[in-house]
């Protein structure tokens, strides 16, 4: 597999606090890559650099072999990197299709005037959800009526709508119950099956070993280990993180 995202020697400081001290991250196209580490390890900062929220003080970032430097999330999005934050970034009282197409609505011409193409957006939303194996059928239902797993599916569909090749999921199962967590893990597998690269930021080791192909462990702003998850148990992964911290 070719590398779709490569970060080398990323450095980022906030005043006196050095959040990243030369972090590396290599993500292969089409894989689910977990980013693990204790609190303060630098996961969030690294994700902010990759998603264009922050700029690195030093280091390089390349996407699909081309060096990139993002001035904002919109540039990261244009480069095919979408981030799904823990709060999902949805408008709860707006409908499923409105959320999926938020900011990139489809239009048609009516007597020469551009108007929203509601039918096309509903059909499109259904298509995206079907791609994820979702059984949601009423695209005009407000998102607030959906379960946590279904909301995650809507957020993922928005990323697909943006034609994202890399989807960063920040703690996607943090506030979910067992059944909904399983739904989200299924969604991640579906994304992989559709050829989408997923970067999974998670504290839940069970989730990581269940869906990730590879894992990068961060500690103190540096990447201390990058390895395949084959044969790795949740306990073993937790021990790796703890050992690195002790070291």
């Amino acid at each position: 597999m070719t590398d779709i995202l490569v970060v080398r020697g990323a450095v980022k400081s906030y005043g006196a606090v050095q959040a990243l001290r030369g972090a590396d991250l290599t993500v292969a196209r089409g894989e689910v890559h977990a980013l693990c580490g204790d609190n303060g390890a630098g996961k969030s900062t690294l994700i902010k650099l990759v998603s264009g929220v922050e700029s690195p003080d030093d280091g390089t970032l390349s996407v699909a072999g081309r060096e990139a430097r993002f001035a904002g999330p919109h540039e990261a999005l244009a480069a095919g990197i979408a981030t799904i934050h823990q709060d999902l970034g949805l408008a709860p009282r707006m409908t499923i299709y409105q959320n999926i197409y938020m900011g990139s609505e489809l239009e048609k011409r009516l007597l020469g005037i551009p108007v929203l193409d509601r039918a096309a957006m509903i059909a499109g939303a259904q298509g995206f959800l079907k791609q994820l194996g979702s059984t949601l059928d009423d695209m005009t239902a407000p998102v607030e009526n959906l379960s946590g797993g279904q909301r995650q599916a809507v957020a993922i569909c928005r990323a697909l709508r943006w034609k994202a090749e890399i989807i960063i999921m920040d703690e996607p199962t943090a506030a979910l119950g067992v059944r909904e967590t399983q739904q989200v893990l299924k969604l991640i597998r579906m994304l992989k099956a559709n050829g989408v690269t997923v970067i999974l930021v998670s504290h839940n080791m069970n989730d990581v070993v269940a869906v990730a192909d590879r894992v990068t462990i961060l500690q103190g702003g540096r990447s201390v280990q990058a390895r395949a998850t084959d044969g790795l148990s949740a306990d073993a992964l937790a021990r790796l993180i703890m050992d690195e911290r002790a070291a």
Partner: protein
Amino acid sequence: MKSFVAKYGTALAGLAVLIFLVIFARNFASQANLLNVLKQTSFLTILSVGFTFALITSELDLSFASLCSLAAVVTGGLVHAEIAWPLAALAGLGVALAGGALNGFLVTAIKVPSLIATLGTASIAGGVAFMITGGVAFVGRWDATFLSLARGKLFGIPTLIFFMAAVVLIAWFVANRTKLGVHMLATGEAQEAAHRAGIATRRMKLIGLTLSGLAAGIAAVLLVSNLSSAAPQMAGDFLMNGIAAVLLGMTMFQPGRPNIAGSFVGALTIAVLANGLVLLGAPYYLQDIMLGVIVIGSVSVSASVLKKAAFAV
């Protein structure tokens, strides 16, 4: 059934009031009275529609009545000075539009909460209106074409009703069928999410408040044309009525959310009630009590959007 009641319950209650008035208020159902009610509703509807746009983006506008008065004074003053009425009307529209844009600038660029910014603008507009008139109303025998704008009839129906219908239809179209409308809605519903989705949320708020100003300008020109006079506080009563209409409108069609159709029916309901109370011989102060009940009742029924705006203070 529950959803039907939530969407249409208030509108049906308004319909029940209408039927009550048809039966018990003498002359209420006469053609002349109904046309008069619609005429009187038009100013309130146009102002309420403007306020709805501001509230859709989760911002308050407490200046629309004062901006309307100021725009009326500017228009009336210029017509009184025998300036060509189209120029006078444009000047009135421009002043109100600028006032709305100023609100938008204060809220989005200077980060002044909309409650404070628009209260300030209202005070300034009121002061300037008094300054222009010297506290005296402009009254005169003005250009007949100008006066026919809001006094004329088309197919036997007062032109004011056509203006109102046009404003409501255009506003409904913009709010419900265009990208601008859905971006304003997303901004009001979930500003951070909308921003992350690439929507220019500050611009949406600026547009919402500016449209509120523009509506105030349109109402002002029609008001001056209809009354053939312009006074510094002539639209003052519309503030409470407009807020009540929009809040009442939030209890119907799209419960908890400001919406154009709801604001129109809200304004109509308030005008019908006011007219009915007069015809029933009720004392004038009952109207104020009624408005208070409507405001509190509406917010109790659907508080969420207003709460967001209130928390922005």
